[in-house]
């Protein structure tokens, strides 16, 4: 029972971890990433199409990451190069992904909103789950120990300092945003070819925003962020098990109350224990060299 609960928690949190770590790169570099949801969605689509074409989940997830990167590049063009308001551009990117995926489904498969199913032997069984935790470690080492990790941190905290140290701020931001797209794309891939068997319309169902919440919850650091994802996953897994359970032997608790549990927990935990979490100082501010 406990092992199943744990397994369930880990599964549910896998896409969140990928997306949240993706968000971490771009936000630590100073680019707020509301667009995670959209990048995930296009990633899920790309991975499904890629797997259908190549019959390999690995190549498929590469396609998903590619799709995420593509969308991230568009986001970067606006958020970095054209200095658009990042929240505006991010919101637009989400809409674009939401509209574009069914549109492409229609063109590719003449189906509105979903791709054909992917056979079980071409889907992932567990790989993304392990991969996500390896990635947590990699990100932790990356941010702490490598020059590019340091540059990313400074690009978000004090871009002028980074510029004065002779590093091109916007190049670092580009790098971070593209990584962000790749990881969010992988998060989407784990939805379509790991946790289910096809792409379907708006299948991210708000997970990009949950990832964002985990990122804030985890104070923009890889390990705490991953733990926050786990917490959300746990709340979800518990919620599933609580449905239909009756307290005090009487009627079961209305399902709606059970279903809002994870969200309630998040609010309470955030208000009670986490306190202030401070975003990277320059997050949201475009950098321009005069």
């Amino acid at each position: 029972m406990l092992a199943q609960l744990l397994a369930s928690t880990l599964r549910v949190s896998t896409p969140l971890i990928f997306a949240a770590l993706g968000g971490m790169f771009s936000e630590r570099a100073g680019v707020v990433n509301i667009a995670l949801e959209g990048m995930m969605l296009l990633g899920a689509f790309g991975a499904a199409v890629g797997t259908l074409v190549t019959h390999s989940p690995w190549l498929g997830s590469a396609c998903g990451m590619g799709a995420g990167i593509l969308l991230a590049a568009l986001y970067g063009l606006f958020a970095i190069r054209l200095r658009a308001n990042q929240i505006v551009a991010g919101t637009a990117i989400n809409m674009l992904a939401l509209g574009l995926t069914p549109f492409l489904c229609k063109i590719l498969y003449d189906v509105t909103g979903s791709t054909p199913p992917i056979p079980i032997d071409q889907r992932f069984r567990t790989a993304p789950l392990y991969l996500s935790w390896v990635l947590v470690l990699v990100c932790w080492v990356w941010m702490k120990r490598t020059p590019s990790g340091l540059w990313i941190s400074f690009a978000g905290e004090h871009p002028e300092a980074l510029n004065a140290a002779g590093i091109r701020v916007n190049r670092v931001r580009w790098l971070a945003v593209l990584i962000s797209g790749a990881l969010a794309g992988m998060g989407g891939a784990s939805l379509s070819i790991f946790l289910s068997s096809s792409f379907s319309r708006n299948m991210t169902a708000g997970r990009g925003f949950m990832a964002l919440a985990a990122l804030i919850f985890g104070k923009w650091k890889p390990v705490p962020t991953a733990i926050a994802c786990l917490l959300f996953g746990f709340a979800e897994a518990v919620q599933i098990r609580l449905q239909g359970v009756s307290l005090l032997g009487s009627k079961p608790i209305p399902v709606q109350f059970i279903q809002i549990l994870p969200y309630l927990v998040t609010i309470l935990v955030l208000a009670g224990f986490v306190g202030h979490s401070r975003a990277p100082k320059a997050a949201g501010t475009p950098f321009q060299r005069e």
Partner: protein
Amino acid sequence: MRKLLQPILAVALGLALGLAVTWIAGESPWHVLKILEKGAFGSGYDFGMTLFYTTPLIFTGLSVAVAFHAGLFNIGAEGQLTVGALAAAVVGAVWSGLSAPLAPVVAVLAALLAGTIWGAIPGWLRARRGSHEVINTIMLNFIAAGLTSYVALYLLKNPDSQNPETRPIGPGYLIHQFGIFGGAPVSAALPLAILAAALVWVLLWRTSLGFEIRAVGQSEPAARAAGIDAGRIRIIAMCLAGGLAGLVGVGEVLGNAGKFKVGFSPEFGFIGIAVALLGRNQPAGILAAALLFGALHKGTADLDFETEHVTRELSLILQALVILSVSADGLWSWMKERRRPVIPETAGGVTC
């Protein structure tokens, strides 16, 4: 002049890009544009539907904008409008005997109050507990959906329908619908929304409170040093934001459905973000942007009818591209840069 021209050009650019997408899909952009125009403005009824969609977008756009001015990002308009609509419906269903002049006023106040409370929660949490409003408003959207569907399904269920919806409100609650739109549910909610926009403008730019809201949004330390209680202002701003979003319930419940239907909103709350941003958080801009998005929403609904490959999804694509091109502040200076003769070209790096 430039200020006005820029967004118009940007909207045009966005539409052009979007229509280019339709061309890729094998439809003539010109044809699609004409369908959109006809779908949104073709008849009194069509225009009425456009206005019907515009109304909630004005409210949610204002909601997002007021929060923005206080430096807060309100992703929670969706939840706020849900509880607002439910409150109006509950009042109307429970005290169904109430009659005309009083009844709608009570219901409007109920919607306002419910939205206000739903906005106050993340406002309070941000101001006093320091937790981020982006997360809390997202969570509250889900919670609102859960609670309202419980009320609609178990407490106030409509016995005459399989729809997840509440009992109908009393006849005294229904507000005036304009006849000139051929039956489209354009109600008194539209003038109410325009009035709200005017009031928000007055509040923000003509009152001390509005100035304090903007000051907190601009720089919390400066506002604090000037003796403004930033926490209090944030709570007030979120209350206002929530109340404005809650008023969406007026048009939907009192002016259209006559009850609360679970899931009635096609994400007005999220489109409201786009409306606020496109309208540059200015009430007048929001009115214009809401009309644009209302028209896109209505216009694209007809695409299915008239084309082979282009579906309603184009609506989202168009909206997204319009927002993107409007958002690109740097686009103009970039284009200028391109035209300017380049002085010592720097690309090569050190040339010693």
